[in-house]
């Protein structure tokens, strides 16, 4: 990883002649002191070389969100696109023609995107014009020549970094990347004789001393760039004479071993240029990004001058807080460049009239989505040591969808606040967490670990374990529907009280329905949709608790589950992410895909390190799972979720299950549409009663998120081997046109639908027959 070993500019040691200045007799007299001094210098020399040759900096790993893909027909809202553009730091402008800017007029965008090296290939810069209608990208063309484009992607948002202990951040640059005005300006202002001196500039010191004496206080420093580099690179901030001596010696040694270009490049990467919360901004590469949101190569003269201006005191001259001061100093720098003949007068004048041009502080830094980063770390910790993540400058491409993440964060915050207010709950009693993942790939789009979404602490999405309540039921009903000859959606189940002995103790367990009423014989689909507990336990006991647990395992639950009958009602503590895994397998119709948050890891210089290839495993038969999912849609639209579901547009295909635990402590909702799987948990950290059911708590958040992010409309086709049959609601038998009001269309695995006609169907036939008979009679009258 050593940069310098590849550097052709490196000068071989001992290219300068050593001079013997000290007479021999003096040397003999001062021998012990000299020996000690030489030893000390050798020691410093070792330090100087070791650090400069080795890995000079710990570079934090950069974590990127998924890149937004733009293509005709892409599901995308204008608001989502604008948010994405803001998040990747693109600036709004009137024409959107400058690199990294965009313009929006209604639903038409012009975007000038930057080139970006994605893990699977280079994306060139684009000049795009696109329109969005009814949540769909309708046209995508090259702004310059009007040609239609098939596909373009934006650069991904940087969602965070995994930092070294000291939280220094930098983007390494080569000397050749820096604009000449920046390098010249730096030398003109900080170290005029840099190219001539050997590390210490005595005339500079004299000049500085004279200026300071005249001014009565320190106005000018005599430190060379080399000394400044040594101070930052090797020494602490102590202001002692001893340190000054070390600094001078080390500066001489550094100059002795390395070229001016090497030193300048190290300086350009080391220099401290600002602060972003706990993150220290070092080097011109990151500073260009931090202040102007552009690569250092694109800096203009006034921008270069500003960076030189603030390096004396990044806090004092902070262009965001003290813009006037920063502007004055920037213009002084421009004057210096002009006076030194480094730029032309006209250019200087124009530069001085330019505004500072600093962009708002970027919305990234350390703690943007800590709960998601937590998941990323856990996925990577199986393969990497924490230390490597913090120091090797890895580029980590994750699956985070910033739009979904923001929707999830905002919904959780909004609803916990609102519910506390409306229900007069103790303030901050409610907590919650959210996991959103993508149907098809199992890629995690969003993780919210609590109400304080920026708090990097207890992650309730991954670590809280609570009874899952009725969230378990799809596994139970799936176990039944896997025997299509015995169970269909219309099979009548017995919703009657029962008493069970728990294994291991003599306690009697008598489950109850939520409404404390038993509903008699109910069709299977309604038992699931209305979450009847007695029907569930009766069915589960008939199937066998172990069978149900086996189905849970098939769906992706890896935790050990004890085989108690109460498991049938979800008396098992699991985490939201485990629920997300279970419902992911349902959403994918029985294909299990382990949830994942990372797609690819690249080394600092862009070489692939690890690719997490897409994976899947069919564990269940597609039609079996389709039946359960159909019932889950019924549960949301007409069952326990009905009240909230009214708010969701009817043409979004969504389904899911509420979960409520004893005494209304935990409120769950898990479900999915054709694009996303979502799980929401709501409850209190110390397991207090919240008074919320799955529907009144978690479902509110879930519906809020899912109706925002699900943009696909219309039904997905039923799999093969499924036939749709009209069924009479009260009897579960075949219906026809005679049974309009009470009939509904239900799916069956081929050849398992009831064959018997319902009464209404029969009477309809009779009616028709009688009608015909009557009219025939009429012929003879």
């Amino acid at each position, binding site marked *: 990883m050593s940069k310098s070993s590849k550097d052709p500019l490196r000068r071989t040691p001992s290219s300068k002649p050593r001079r013997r200045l000290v007479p021999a007799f003096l040397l003999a007299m001062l021998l012990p002191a000299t020996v000690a001094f030489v030893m000390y210098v050798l020691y410093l020399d070792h330090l100087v070389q070791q650090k400069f040759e080795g890995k000079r900096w710990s570079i934090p790993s950069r974590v990127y969100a998924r890149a937004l*893909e733009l293509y005709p*027909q892409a599901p995308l809202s204008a608001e989502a696109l604008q948010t994405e553009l803001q998040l990747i730091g693109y600036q709004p402008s009137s024409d959107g023609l400058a690199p990294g800017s965009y313009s929006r007029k209604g639903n038409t965008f012009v975007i000038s995107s930057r080139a970006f090296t994605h893990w699977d*290939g280079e994306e060139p810069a684009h000049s795009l014009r696109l329109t969005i209608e009814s949540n769909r990208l309708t046209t995508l063309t090259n702004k310059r020549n009007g040609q239609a484009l098939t596909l373009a992607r934006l650069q991904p948002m940087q969602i965070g970094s995994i930092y070294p202990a000291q939280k220094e951040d930098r983007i390494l640059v080569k000397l050749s990347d820096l604009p000449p005005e920046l390098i010249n300006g730096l030398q003109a202002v900080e170290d005029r004789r840099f190219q001539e001196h050997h590390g210490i500039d005595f005339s500079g010191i004299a000049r500085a001393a004279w200026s300071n004496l005249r001014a009565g206080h320190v106005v000018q420093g005599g430190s060379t760039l080399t000394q400044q580099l040594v101070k930052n690179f090797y020494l602490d901030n102590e202001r002692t004479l001893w340190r000054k001596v070390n600094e001078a010696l080390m500066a001489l040694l550094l100059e002795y071993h390395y070229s001016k270009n090497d030193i300048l490049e190290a300086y350009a990467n080391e220099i401290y240029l600002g602060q972003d919360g706990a993150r220290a901004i070092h080097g011109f590469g990151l500073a260009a990004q931090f202040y102007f949101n552009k690569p250092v190569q694109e800096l203009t003269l006034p921008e270069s001058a500003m960076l030189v201006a603030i390096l004396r005191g990044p806090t004092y001259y902070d262009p965001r807080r003290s813009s006037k001061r920063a502007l004055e100093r920037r213009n002084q720098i421009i004057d210096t460049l002009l006076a030194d003949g480094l730029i032309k007068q006209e250019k200087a004048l124009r530069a001085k009239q330019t505004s500072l041009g600093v962009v708002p502080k970027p919305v990234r830094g350390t703690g943007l989505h800590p709960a998601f980063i937590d998941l990323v770390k856990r996925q990577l910790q199986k393969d990497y040591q924490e230390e*490597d993540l913090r120091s090797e400058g890895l580029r980590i491409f994750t699956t985070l969808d910033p739009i979904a993440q923001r929707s999830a964060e905002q919904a959780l915050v909004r609803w916990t606040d609102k519910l506390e207010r409306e229900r007069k709950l103790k303030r901050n009693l409610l907590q919650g967490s959210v996991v959103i993942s993508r149907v098809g790939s199992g890629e995690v789009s969003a993780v919210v670990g609590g109400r304080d979404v920026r708090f990097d602490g207890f992650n309730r999405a991954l670590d809280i374990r609570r009874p899952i309540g009725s969230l378990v039921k799809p596994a139970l009903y799936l176990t039944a529907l896997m025997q299509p000859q015995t169970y269909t959606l219309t099979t009548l189940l017995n919703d009657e009280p029962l008493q069970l002995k728990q294994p291991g103790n003599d306690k009697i367990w008598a489950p109850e329905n939520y409404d404390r009423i038993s509903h008699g014989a109910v069709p299977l689909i309604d038992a699931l949709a209305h979450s009847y507990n007695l029907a569930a336990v009766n069915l589960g006991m008939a199937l066998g608790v172990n069978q149900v647990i086996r189905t849970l395992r098939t769906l992706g639950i890896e935790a050990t589950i004890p085989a108690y009958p109460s498991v049938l009602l979800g008396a098992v503590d699991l985490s939201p992410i485990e629920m997300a895994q279970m419902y992911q397998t349902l959403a994918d119709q029985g*294909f299990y895909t382990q949830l994942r948050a990372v797609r690819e890891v690249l080394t600092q210089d862009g070489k692939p390190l690890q690719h997490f290839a897409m994976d*899947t495993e069919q564990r269940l038969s597609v039609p079996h799972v389709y039946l359960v999912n159909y019932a889950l849609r019924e549960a949301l639209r007409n069952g326990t979720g009905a009240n909230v579901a009214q708010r969701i547009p009817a043409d979004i295909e969504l389904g899911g299950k509420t979960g409520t635990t004893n005494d209304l402590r935990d409120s769950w909702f898990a479900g999915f549409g054709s694009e996303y799987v979502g799980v929401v948990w709501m409850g209190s950290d110390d397991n207090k009663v919240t008074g919320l059911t799955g529907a009144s708590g978690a479902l509110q958040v879930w519906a809020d998120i899912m109706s925002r992010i699900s943009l696909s409309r219309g039904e*997905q*086709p039923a799999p093969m081997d499924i036939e749709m049959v009209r069924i009479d609601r009260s009897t579960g038998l075949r219906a026809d046109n005679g049974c309009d009001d009470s009939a509904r269309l239900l799916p069956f695995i081929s050849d398992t639908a009831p064959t018997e006609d319902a009464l209404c169907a029969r009477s309809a036939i009779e009616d028709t027959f009688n009608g015909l008979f009557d009219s025939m009679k009429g012929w003879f009258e």
Partner: protein
Amino acid sequence: MASQMIKSRIRRYLLVSITMVAAGCSNIPLQTSRPAQPQPVQTQPAPPPVQPVQPAQPPTQPTVQPVQPVQPAQPAQPAQPAQRSAVSVQLLAQAETLQQGGDLSGAIAQVERAVRIEPRNAYAWHRLATLQLAAGDLNRAEQFARRSNQYAAGDRELIEANQKVMDEVRRLR
């Protein structure tokens, strides 16, 4: 020390990719009925193991077509997302080029991208299956073929092609 670990990882990664490519080469004559025997090392990249199903339309045609604005009169998406949408045609064509140039992992990355964009594209899942078969990852090949069937919606030709992949996986196991 840390950087060494990384380096050794890169080495391992390269080794694995090379093995994968080599495995792909040894699987090449899938369509012929020659008995499985060690194949001589081929110097030229060979054709894909299982002929991908031909797109219903020539790839050039749909690249222009979907760019036209959709009629707002049809807010509902067609029940079956366009299987040969311009974007998937483009990505699969890129994958084809990469595979022919011997870059299997590059080809897989392109098809994975297509699958992410259109998770219900049966044809993209099928290509992922054939590519993993070429890469010698039999489990993935079989599972992706099954996944393709999940969305094939009665496309006989595609279902047969998936069956070929699964038969081949069984033969190689």
